[in-house]
């Protein structure tokens, strides 16, 4: 059974977003006469159910942000489908695309560069309403006030400029702006990574409350596994443009199957003898190789402690190891997953 067939079994009625074989390549000049490409996202498929949180983890350069931006149509899609609701939005352009954008919003990592320093906070929250023609003029002012209250800011905040807010408050403004057109899906691209831990907790609690109240769907990108574990319903681990493992959060932290996931968990495990053992056995060294014209074979082969010959020759497909649990590794059947005894 392929991953795709397995996914079909999943109840299709509540799927909000269905990404099929998404590819995003960027031209990277020419090498020995032939054009070369950065394989930022290389055949990624996943489904996100309405009202749930889909987490994407991976190192810098793994393609997690590009995947989310391609879903938002903020970067050109090379091939593949992005089915939102019942339409493939990867093919849309012009007015139909603008209409769809109303339902898709994003919160960026750095609230300092995501807000225009020369415009008042209220105007920036109002902008999506103006652009998409939502509500009458007087309605919009009222909605800005309501949105500010929802993210925990006083109504006077509307008249201030971004530099008059702290980092956490700016992120609240960004969330209010994303909420303004009442979207179905919000992409949180490392939305709390730039904030202090105490402020992170405030923002995460806020996002979770908004999700409960509005039945929002999130794509939550982070490299903080502890946050991913608590915040997400389903988790995909990306490495060099590929999803290497995908499973419900309950499953992936209990029985991970891919050597790269093991390494990530080893790096983030709580201190103690268990972590020392995990690090000794599973933590990989070095940095990911270049995503420009990757070699055939598994993307992780150069850093994988368990790599064998077949890994160099053939790219593994995503196989089903348990319900809704997909792993892209030639050796997933023979390699024993780590044990998490805290002895």
């Amino acid at each position: 059974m392929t991953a795709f067939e397995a996914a079909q079994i999943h109840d299709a009625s509540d799927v909000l977003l269905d990404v099929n074989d998404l590819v995003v390549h960027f031209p990277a000049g020419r090498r020995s006469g032939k054009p070369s490409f950065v394989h930022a996202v290389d055949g990624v498929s996943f489904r996100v159910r309405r009202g749930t949180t889909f987490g994407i983890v991976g190192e810098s350069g793994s393609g997690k942000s590009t995947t989310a931006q391609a879903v938002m149509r903020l970067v050109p899609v090379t091939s593949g489908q992005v089915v939102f609701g019942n339409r493939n939005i990867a093919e849309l352009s012009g007015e139909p695309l603008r209409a769809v954008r109303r339902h898709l919003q994003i919160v960026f990592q750095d609230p300092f560069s995501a807000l225009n320093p020369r415009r008042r906070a209220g105007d920036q929250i109002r902008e999506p309403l103006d652009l998409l023609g939502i509500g009458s003029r007087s309605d919009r002012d009222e909605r800005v006030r309501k949105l500010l209250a929802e993210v925990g800011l006083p109504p006077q905040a509307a008249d201030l400029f971004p530099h008059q807010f702290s980092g956490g408050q700016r992120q609240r403004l960004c969330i209010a702006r994303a909420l303004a057109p009442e979207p179905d899906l919000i992409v949180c691209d490392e939305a709390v990574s730039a904030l202090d831990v105490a402020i992170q907790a405030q923002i995460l609690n806020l996002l979770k409350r908004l999700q409960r109240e509005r039945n929002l769907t999130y794509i939550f990108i982070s490299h903080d596994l502890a946050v991913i574990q608590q915040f997400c319903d389903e988790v995909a681990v990306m490495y060099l443009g590929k999803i290497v493992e995908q499973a419900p959060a309950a499953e992936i932290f209990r029985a991970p199957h891919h050597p790269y996931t093991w390494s990530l968990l080893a790096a983030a495990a709580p201190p103690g003898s268990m972590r020392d053992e995990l690090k000794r056995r599973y933590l990989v060294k070095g940095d990911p190789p270049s995503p420009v014209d990757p070699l055939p074979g598994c993307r992780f082969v150069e850093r994988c402690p368990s790599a064998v010959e077949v890994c160099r020759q053939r790219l593994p497909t995503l196989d089903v190891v348990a319900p809704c649990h997909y792993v892209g590794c030639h050796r997933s059947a023979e390699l024993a997953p780590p044990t998490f005894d805290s002895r």
Partner: protein
Amino acid sequence: MVALLEVDQLNVSMRSEAGRLVPVIENLSFAVAPAQTLALVGESGCGKSMTALALMGLLPEDFVITSGRILLEGRDILSLPARDMRALRGSAMSMIFQEPMTALNPLFTVGDQIGEVLRWHRGLGGAAAREQVLALLRAVQIPAPERRIDAYPHQLSGGMRQRVMIAMALAGKPKLLIADEPTTALDVTVQAQIFDLLAQLQRETGTAILLITHDLGAVGELANEILVLYAGRCIEAGASAGIVAQPRHPYTRGLLRCVAHLQLGQAPKSWTDLGEIPGMVPPLGARGAECAFLARCAKAADVCRSNPQPILEPIAAGHAVSCWCKAAVAA
């Protein structure tokens, strides 16, 4: 053990536009012994980085040290002339900055930049310097150092750049290494590698490390001692195991509670809100004499409102806290 670095009642202020002095760091005292690690913990705006810059003699223009002493190996470095201070910086003490991209010069190769330290402080040049740079790059576990020595910063990944920063900081064989959030800009796997590297280098060289971070959970095992700063005031200090296991100040407790903890080998519990500390650090100039944490403290009582900031008092062996309600909080 004799302290390598001793900071005694340090006060740093900022000169406001009106010429008034606004306190930034108040009555800060701590000591670091050789081969030990002290972590300075707190949110942005609590004065962690300013403490580091005061130690290095690199405070921005409007910031002045109003009183206190900084002793490095018994020598008061605040009274040193600029020339002598320059000789200390990079050799007796050096600093790893938070953002390796902006801290490295984009126009010079990493070999040049590390070599500069060797030229200045150890009088090495030419082939001898290059040999040393290669050894340093190897020490910080950069693969293929013969190739990377001639690379420019933009040709390296974030983790690699941070390793170059560490190599540069170690080049002068410092006795004190100040690491200002050395891993915030990096991925988790790389973070783990950098922390391991720092611990290993410390074992080999006996360098004392002053580690600055906002993540109390992450430093528990790395640091021997922890000092929690809030709004420029030390509110809790002591051995790291004691502080992580039994935090006494409401702020320290809040910092520990607001992080999610990874639980392996079991299904995660359904979402429960993280413990949040409402509000934010009072800005400069808005800090009164009373306990700085008062406005955000859930345990604030009348005694806190009617008295000035409590002094840092020992509550157990090697554990001091500045809180009027410390007896109640301890329960």
